[in-house]
């Protein structure tokens, strides 16, 4: 077992527009990317469970083969810049992904 944080080159989060956040998980090589893809580690269900959100709030899970990368889009809990905002850019929302376990 390895943690996603050990295998991925980059794990980022950022807003895509004011109403959704996307997570980008990029690998250095097709073998490691393929390992994670084949093990079905990153799915709407696994993301929803990690974040405690309804699975319908996971808008997309995309495998970008040419880039050895995954993209996950989720609904923001409230529009960016709302009162009480603590992460306007959505740049610090990826921490739960770091601990995903990869066989």
């Amino acid at each position: 077992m390895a943690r996603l944080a050990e295998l991925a080159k980059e794990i980022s989060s950022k807003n895509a527009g004011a109403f959704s956040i996307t997570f980008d998980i990029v690998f250095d090589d097709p073998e490691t990317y393929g390992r994670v893809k084949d093990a079905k580690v990153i799915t709407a269900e696994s993301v929803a469970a990690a974040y405690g959100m309804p699975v319908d709030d996971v808008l997309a899970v995309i495998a970008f083969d040419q880039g050895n990368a995954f993209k996950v889009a989720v609904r923001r809990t409230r529009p960016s810049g709302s009162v009480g905002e603590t992460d306007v850019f959505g740049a610090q929302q990826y921490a739960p992904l770091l601990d995903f376990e990869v066989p």
Partner: protein
Amino acid sequence: MPFQQAPVRLLAATGAVGFTPPDPARSFDAALEMSPDAIVADAGSADIGPLFLGADVAYNDLEWERLDLERLLDGAQRLDVPLVIGSCGGTGTDRAVDSYAEMVAEIGRRRGVAYPCALIYSEQSADWLKGRLRDGAATSEITPLLPPLSAEEVDASDHLVGVMGAQPILAALERGARVVLAGRACDDALFAATAMWAGAKPGPAYLAGKLLENASLVAEPFVLRESVVADIEDDGVVLEPMLAIQRCTRSSVAAQLMYERGTPFEQSGPGGVLDLRGLEIEELDDRRVALRGPVYRETAPAIKVEGAGKVGYRSLSIAGCRDPKMVAALDPVLAEVRERVGASGAEVAISVFGRDAVMGPLEPVKVTGHEVAVVVETVAPTQEQANTAALLSKRMLFSARYPGQKQSGGSIASTIDEYLEAGPTYRWTVNHVVDVPDLEAPFRTELRELGTPA
């Protein structure tokens, strides 16, 4: 595969004009040595929240913006190539375009140069948008993540901007402008328009736009605001970062293709969609990457419109908690604050840094630090009411009682201010795609000479 024509070479100088003070002469000078056909810079239109649009205030330090404009203008002048800058000021409001125009004029006067400029304004009137609404041009099918646009939300907007695509920028360059200052624009459109003006085909031009919109973020390691040069060819784009420590790789360009978008495979914009399903990525050497196979399809004309409206005035209080018993008892204490302050007529939001402020309800880690910061934000119809509500919150925290309490000097640690007045606050009122009959008509272009010849 041999190219059919000479490549178009673009210099992407930065994805965030004025965001930080410019570092002296780093990659930009190396990039100028590559003899680009044009210089393009995006003024950091990343989603910065509704405040700057609603209040129409500057997002960056004006002196940093001026220094950036100066080096960009000097570079363009030296090479005698066009300079295109978009989403001036971050929000792209009319005031922000004029602010950049004033800076360009002042630089021109000092240099003894008159720059032939195009100013492209993107603000829209409520009447125009309500007219589009009546024509059925802003349905929820077009923007599914949001409730449908309503006339009430349009009227609640303090500022509205249309996000322009390549069309008005291309038109300005074709009319002879050598410096284009665009209001709110799609980041990629600045580069795509310039590339097409220089002869590139739409597919590679829009691909270049997507890759270059954040300049050095397309390369690794992560560095902001450094230059990248792109050669736009018949069937794709070749990228090279100009900062010596950076290199483009498959993963760095993949990350940029995904950046701030819902999918890497399709990029929709005004008038068309860029299809990247057939994209091929090749690392040419240790720092250059070629991307081939973009397909551009025209679609029915539509633009995104952004609007922000005032919701009231905001105030903040910040309190530190260090007593383990107080930290453990925070939830009932904060519940009481919310109830009492809410009853006074203010909206209140409380974040606990050191526990779950950054991720809020999404935070899976249920561990609290030995100290936390409680940040209370209050919003009310007047600044005085917001201030009073923040002060009340602070006083309630100071006098909070909790199980196991041993102190009588105050339940929180205070900074100098009892509250910090934060001024007017805004929300997104419009963030919808709107069908339009014409992709240039919503934007007003003025051609002007800025500066004075020597």
